[in-house]
């Protein structure tokens, strides 16, 4: 068999379409991790993912306590879905997740975006979703570079050793 030579990853294009803590943070960690390794990173927020870059919502993202089978109480105890329906539970669980992350030096969303752009990463918003949610550029965080159609975004995803990741 012919020997295959591995060549390093050069660019990641990450699309985030959901607005839960885990989806948004997975996106941010991957984008930041890329620029830290010298890999170009471009991030496209669409649909509910827009919450992560909307000034009004970015500090309020939550994790779903209903319909989340991996959800467990501290100590690995079962967490019945019905508990997740009680008002305030989702907020409490989300606050706890965030506090656990801060302990690991994972910053709030706005600061995370700044870390990514400081390393040369680029943040984009989806035009279609913006129109759908009646959002304007001024509603978005300053680190968002532009509002693009998916076609425009693909236009930025060219080049050798580029990967598109959908979270």
């Amino acid at each position, binding site marked *: 068999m012919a020997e295959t030579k591995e060549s390093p990853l050069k660019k990641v294009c990450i699309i985030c379409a959901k607005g839960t803590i885990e989806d948004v943070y997975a996106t941010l960690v991957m984008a930041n991790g890329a620029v830290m390794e010298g890999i170009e990173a471009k991030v496209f927020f669409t649909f509910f993912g827009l919450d992560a870059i909307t000034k009004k919502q970015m500090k309020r993202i939550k994790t779903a306590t209903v319909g989340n089978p991996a959800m467990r109480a501290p100590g690995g105890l079962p967490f019945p879905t019905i508990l997740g329906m009680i008002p305030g539970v989702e907020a409490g669980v989300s606050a706890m997740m965030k506090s656990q992350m801060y302990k690991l*030096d994972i910053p709030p969303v706005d600061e995370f975006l700044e*870390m990514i752009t400081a390393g040369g990463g680029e943040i984009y918003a989806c035009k279609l979703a913006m129109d759908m949610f009646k959002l304007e550029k001024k509603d978005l965080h300053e680190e968002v570079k532009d509002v693009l159609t998916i076609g425009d975004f693909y236009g930025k995803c060219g080049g050798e050793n580029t990967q598109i990741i959908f979270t």
Partner: protein
Amino acid sequence: MAQKTYAGQPVEVNDEGYLVDASQWNKEIAAEMAKEEEIDLSDKHFEVLEFLRNSYEKGETLTIRRVGKSGIVDIKGLYKLFPGGPLKYSSKFAGIPKPASCV
């Protein structure tokens, strides 16, 4: 593990080129390591390296965010000092292990 010679001094390095023994480090070694990545170390670079070495000695977990809040340089500045690997290269030149951190 491999032996390497920096600034006329034989040192032990791991597969990724990081010093195995942080106490073998000196400024000349740092400068030669940086040359391999085409970086010329300035006083500002050394301030960062000192900060990293001190944090490492205290057993702190190193993240790019912590360096950004050190008062020496912000994150953008850190990328300028160590292009292509702000934490990866700075920790290498500081003679400490590569931080096992995702941020």
